[in-house]
């Protein structure tokens, strides 16, 4: 069963992955053997993903992450919230971020 992602929770990159910025791209590299095909796979984030990833510090709940991005990008908060939720759901399902207790 997939984990529920809520706006009141804060998320942080999992210790099972490494994220590196290379030539402006965020590259996520699995560190342990049960994420994807560790032998051959890397993951990159799209523009939306990059913007959100940088704010997943475990301190800011997703609601605040969305609010900050809406201000930075001068975009409707509803659109931003949808993106944040979509991205974090995808990252959680891939075990690349975890909820901060």
């Amino acid at each position: 069963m997939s984990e529920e992602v809520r706006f009141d929770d804060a998320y942080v990159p999992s210790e099972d992955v490494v994220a590196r910025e290379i030539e402006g791209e965020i590259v996520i590299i699995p560190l342990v053997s049960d994420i994807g095909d560790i032998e051959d796979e890397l993951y990159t984030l799209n523009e939306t993903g990059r913007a959100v990833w940088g704010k997943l510090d475990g301190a800011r709940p997703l609601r605040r992450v969305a609010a900050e991005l809406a201000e930075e990008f001068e975009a409707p908060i509803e659109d931003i919230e949808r993106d944040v939720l979509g991205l974090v759901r995808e990252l959680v399902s891939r075990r690349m971020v975890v909820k901060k207790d």
Partner: protein
Amino acid sequence: MSPPRTGYVRRVRRDEAPLWPGARPLLTWLDLELTERCNCDCVHCSVNRPAGDPEAKRSELATAEVERLLEAAAGLGCLSVRLTGGEPLLREDFADIYLFARKLGLRTMIFTNAALVTPALAELFARVPPLESLEVSVYGLERGTHEAVTRTPGSFAAARRGLALLAERRVPFYIKGALLPGNAVEREPFERWARGVSGQARPAWVRFLDLRSRRDDDGKNALIRGLRAAPEDVRRDTAALPAADRAELLGFIAAHGGPAGDRLFTCLSTGGKGAVDAYGTFQYCLLLRHPETVFDLKKGTLRTAVTDHLPAVRAMKARDPEYLGRCGRCFLKAFCLQCPAKSWAEHGTLDTPVEYLCAVAHAQAVGLGVLAEGEKAWTVEDWKARIDRPAGAGGGDRQPVRECSQ
């Protein structure tokens, strides 16, 4: 912020189309020699210094320096590092360095003799996989054969213990060896054993042994020369290869044959790569320590080494008339192991032909039917016709006979 609303995360295979559109990482692979010291004293080794050598140990990069170097490499886009030596596991901080590399996301290849693999280390490799098979040097099926090469009592049992620890934890490893007069008789059973323990098709054999890369020991060089495979044996073995292996070699020659002229650096395996020795000197490859080709990382950054120094080295031209008249005109240039590193080790120059390598390349070519007995490849006018890819030949991407550890 502009959507897409889905597909926020893109999965990319490492060997796939560029991660970085319009740009290439400055460095994709780093060879890192953690120490020249080794717990063995192999008869054929071109690097090793005694395990307890105080001067070597004192001069090695400190843990923090190695970590800064790995960080710098990762910052340049590097995705893989090879930790080698000497015996890298001799370093007391090996586990820390390994884990640091892996936490940077670097795939980590380790060259080792396995004798120093502990349960804790095997456990670490199982928990945080290196993502590359460990490459383990083994020299014989029996204690006597193995230790005649390592000249280190107890090294056979220690290596077998290490291999067992890796196997118990399902840490992938690959067996390689040096085919020497003393162990050649074991070749077939050794290959069966290697297949059994590692699953690999066959071990990587080295026969065309390198001389000391520090040019520091004439006596050892004389010993190494005496252990090298004789060209006549190489010709015979090549002629007797199975059809698929012959096709592979012929495919390689077809794909990469042709004279190199005055180009000095023609190695097919060094694009995007760099090497750093145990003391913080950047090198084109780990064998090449000619002073005109190295860069002191205590005086400049890894980025400068990669962006300024390396291209200048690659642009160097051959000047030696004999080299230009032979190697420069030889259609087997890519097939032959002659390179600046080998020239350095043999002659202290970058562009002097290495007679032994020339002889074994010719012996292989005769064995394959590409050259006639006594014919010199640089005199062949119709070389294009000679290397027309035979039916069924391989694609030529592998370098199955180059035997270059780099």
